[in-house]
């Protein structure tokens, strides 16, 4: 039983460390808590039966590392959009192409009323 909880604790704590360094770091809280629970159970059993506790200490160490990284990232990481220069250039190019495409389409329906309405909308701004 002790061995089972140690193995499960290791798996959960390693998963927590891996998740904590990815952008999904907040999710690392779940395996970290699970690892801590398994570690505590294994520790309790080991203490009762006088078994060595080195491996359990390693589980706690990994758990603390993952929780530290996750908490640090949650507090100090600023959420910001990456480089969108390419997207902006693509958008500009796309609009130029779209105007050419629209010239070839039948826009009879929007020639009069809509254009007038748009002018009115612009004047409201």
């Amino acid at each position, binding site marked *: 039983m002790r061995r089972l909880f140690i193995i499960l604790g290791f798996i959960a704590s390693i998963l927590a460390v891996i998740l904590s360094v990815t952008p999904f770091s907040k*999710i690392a809280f*779940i395996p970290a808590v699970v690892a801590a629970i398994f570690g505590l159970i294994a520790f309790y059993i080991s203490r009762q039966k006088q078994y060595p506790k080195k491996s359990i200490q390693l589980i706690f160490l990994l758990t603390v590392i993952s929780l530290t990284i996750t908490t640090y990232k949650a507090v100090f990481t600023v959420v910001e*959009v*990456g480089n969108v220069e390419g997207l902006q250039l693509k958008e500009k190019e796309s609009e130029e192409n779209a105007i050419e495409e629209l010239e070839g*389409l039948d*826009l009879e329906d*929007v020639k009069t009323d809509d*254009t007038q309405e748009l002018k009115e909308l612009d004047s409201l701004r």
Partner: protein
Amino acid sequence: MKHLLTYIFIVVGSIVNAQNTAIGTSEKLTFSASYNMSGLLTEIAQVTMETSSVKTSNATLLKLKCSAATYSSFDNYFKIRDLYESYVSPTTLIPFLYKRDINEGSYYKFEQYKFNHKVNTVNSNMKKRKSEQNKTVKIGNNTRDIVSTIYNIRNIDIEKMTTGSSQNFTFLFDNEELIISLKYLRKESINTNLGKMECYKFAIGLKNDDALKGTSENLLWLTADDNKLPVYAKFKIAVGTGELKLKSATGLKN
């Protein structure tokens, strides 16, 4: 994950053939898209919806743009740079040209629809990295593109809808007509980034596609004012659940 942003757009989409009373010509709405796992929200991307006027030699159209870009922390893992555009009539929001340019990780796709409303057809051009396809697609009278659908939802006369009533709308996506169902649930006050607001709450479902999972887990809140801003949306898709929250709104019409 590949079509995550697409599904986000679907969540806030429907169609009506109404006059435009809610959308201005220089409106900018900025959203934050989050992935939810066991209540732990991870902000993934920024979604922007913008309008502007575009002039051709014989008409002035309204350009509706939706773009999505992952936050910098995700760019190394799964970079998304999506651009959706629709050139529509400023009064009725009927689309004439639709463009979709998606870059999601290693996946790339370009799609262009030219609408011919007189004969109810769409000239479709679809490009992937190694293939290109041109096709003429027959569409129904009220079939639009997804972007004009998203904006059109705000022109629904919601006050006339009764609790539990629903409307079905059709839009063309990947050369297929999809039917979206919009069910009005009730009025509700929710906390948003713009303060506490009274909103109309809707349940959304796709009738002939399984992109959106569940029957009542895809929800949309529109502000109960003349702008009918989509302030909050919750959606369930194959890879989990997510949220879309309005962060800022400028250039509003009303």
